[in-house]
């Protein structure tokens, strides 16, 4: 019911490929018990996470996670209405987010947001 593939794509875009692949592989090899323990540990990290944690917590950009999520969707050429449907929020809320994204990044158009996302992703690869 919830579009996790999109959330996954967004999270992946926030991190360099090697760190993502390492974390992903670590998750895949967890036993059920380890996965439960890790999921319930909240802020405690697995050994690999400890090394990564500080990197994760540093906001790489001025945008909030929701704003980054919306920026990625803007870059995928979705309209505000389509984004609203995708995120099950109102179109007006999306408009506000897009306005804030533009302000925070000092950009003037959706095309600029797309370019910014593409550039950010290319740097991370």
């Amino acid at each position, binding site marked *: 019911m919830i579009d996790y593939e999109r959330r996954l794509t967004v999270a992946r875009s926030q*991190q360099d490929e090697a760190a993502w692949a390492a974390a992903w592989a670590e998750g895949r090899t967890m036993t059920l018990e380890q996965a439960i323990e*890790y999921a319930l540990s909240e802020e405690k990290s697995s050994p690999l996470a400890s090394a990564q944690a500080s990197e994760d917590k540093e906001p790489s950009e001025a945008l909030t996670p929701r704003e980054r999520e919306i920026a990625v969707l803007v870059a995928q050429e979705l309209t505000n209405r389509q984004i609203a449907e995708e995120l099950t929020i109102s179109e007006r809320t999306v408009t506000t987010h897009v306005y804030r994204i533009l302000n925070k990044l000092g950009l003037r158009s959706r095309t600029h947001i797309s370019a910014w996302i593409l550039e950010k992703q290319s740097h991370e690869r």
Partner: protein
Amino acid sequence: VSLAGRLGVFWSTRGHLNEGRVWLESAVSRGGSAATTLARAKALNGAGLLAMAQDDVGAAKAVFEEGLALYRETGDKEGIAFALTNLVSVAWLGQRYDIPVASLIEEANKLKPDIQDQRTVAHLLLLEGGVAFARGDLERVVELWEESLAHFREVRDARGVAMCLMTIGHMKVAQGDYGRAGTLLRESLRLAGELDHKQYVHYCTIGLGSVAASQDLPSRAARLWGPRRAWEWHMARTLRARAAP
């Protein structure tokens, strides 16, 4: 057949899905006239739940339909209502548009005043929540599912409680209420762990992965989503093995 039907929940909860399905299908086919229609209907419902747990949507649809037909023969309203909710869940989760959801829901709603069993009431509320979800009324969805949760808590149905907490948690993720989502999903995960319900564990960890992503913790999200992918791969392999001659 009766014993196999009762064991259905155990197999489903503990993740012994293939084993459970083989037993249930064999029991239903060999039960013949010796087994009561009601026992066969219950066993078929159990087989359907196991098939759904394996994402074997086609098989689940077939056995739920057969089970529903048998429940109708017996006139067991509780059973009919439960079978209807199961069939609708196949339509929604399995995206089977050939299932006449509207008429099934209409039938379930007509039965509602006659339903006494709290578990069945809870399942019907989940169904009603699904209808609200389809029309995009997320607040109503949460209301209905919280009501369902209260019923499951009252009858101390841990599996039902875990399921409700998990579904409401996912709804909170959709609404962007990640704090509440995390609380609900962790409670569900604890229960699912105690029940050893592998499917729910994976649904909870995937939801918590979204919560982690919202907290700007992509590595944590990846670790939480990774096991679910491994589970999907395992399930696909299990189904292939089952289909092999």
